[in-house]
């Protein structure tokens, strides 16, 4: 009913163009939303679980001489899609961590001057020695990659979550 009230001028949609939404239509929309939300959550659960029987392979990361003291190199482990960082703390000490920030998955970068990893997304800081959270929103340390020295080569042999 257009009664000519002044407040009707403030609404951008003319009364003649309003669409009536029936309860049936509304509940159908809710059903669609519910189905989509369930599908999304289930899809994430499916993709996020490790495949059954999936072993963690050993992978050659780098030669000992390929990484200078204080330097770092990036590699993928256990798959190419899982970026990790190998750091040489001193001539005999190597450590490796997953490169995904434990907050929301942004890649962290290594800063040799402070021996820290920095996440630029939300200013998270991790220790370069043990991956512990030093500052910022990350809830957990960086996952550590177990390393094994085989002669003059470094191999990744496992992940410590």
């Amino acid at each position, binding site marked *: 009913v257009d009664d000519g009230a002044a407040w009707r001028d403030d609404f951008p949609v003319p009364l003649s163009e309003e669409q009536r939404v029936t309860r049936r239509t509304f509940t159908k929309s809710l059903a669609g939303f519910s189905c989509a939300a369930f599908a999304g959550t289930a899809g994430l659960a499916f993709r996020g679980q490790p495949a059954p029987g999936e072993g963690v392979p050993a992978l050659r990361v780098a030669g000992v001489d390929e990484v200078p003291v204080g330097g770092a190199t990036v590699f993928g482990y256990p798959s190419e899609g899982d970026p990790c960082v190998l750091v040489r703390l001193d001539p005999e000490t190597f450590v490796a961590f997953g490169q995904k920030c434990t907050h929301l998955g942004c890649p962290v970068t290594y800063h040799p001057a402070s021996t820290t990893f920095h996440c630029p997304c939300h200013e998270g800081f991790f220790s370069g020695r043990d991956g512990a959270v030093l500052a910022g929103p990350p809830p957990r340390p960086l*996952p550590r990659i177990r390393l094994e020295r085989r002669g003059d080569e470094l191999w990744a042999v496992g992940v410590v979550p």
Partner: protein
Amino acid sequence: VRRVPAVMATLLLMAGAQLVLLTVAVEGFLGGQPDLLGPAALGSGMCFAVTWTLIRRVHRS
């Protein structure tokens, strides 16, 4: 007839809960916490089942 508003309120609650569960799942997925994903999917599935059942009843009445 009086049941319908209660059903509609429950449906909205279920939708809100599923939104929260989806958020939890996304955060668990991106943050490397796969142990959150299974319970979130299970909860979302239960919400979907409740929603579906209630909607069928509303449409029949």
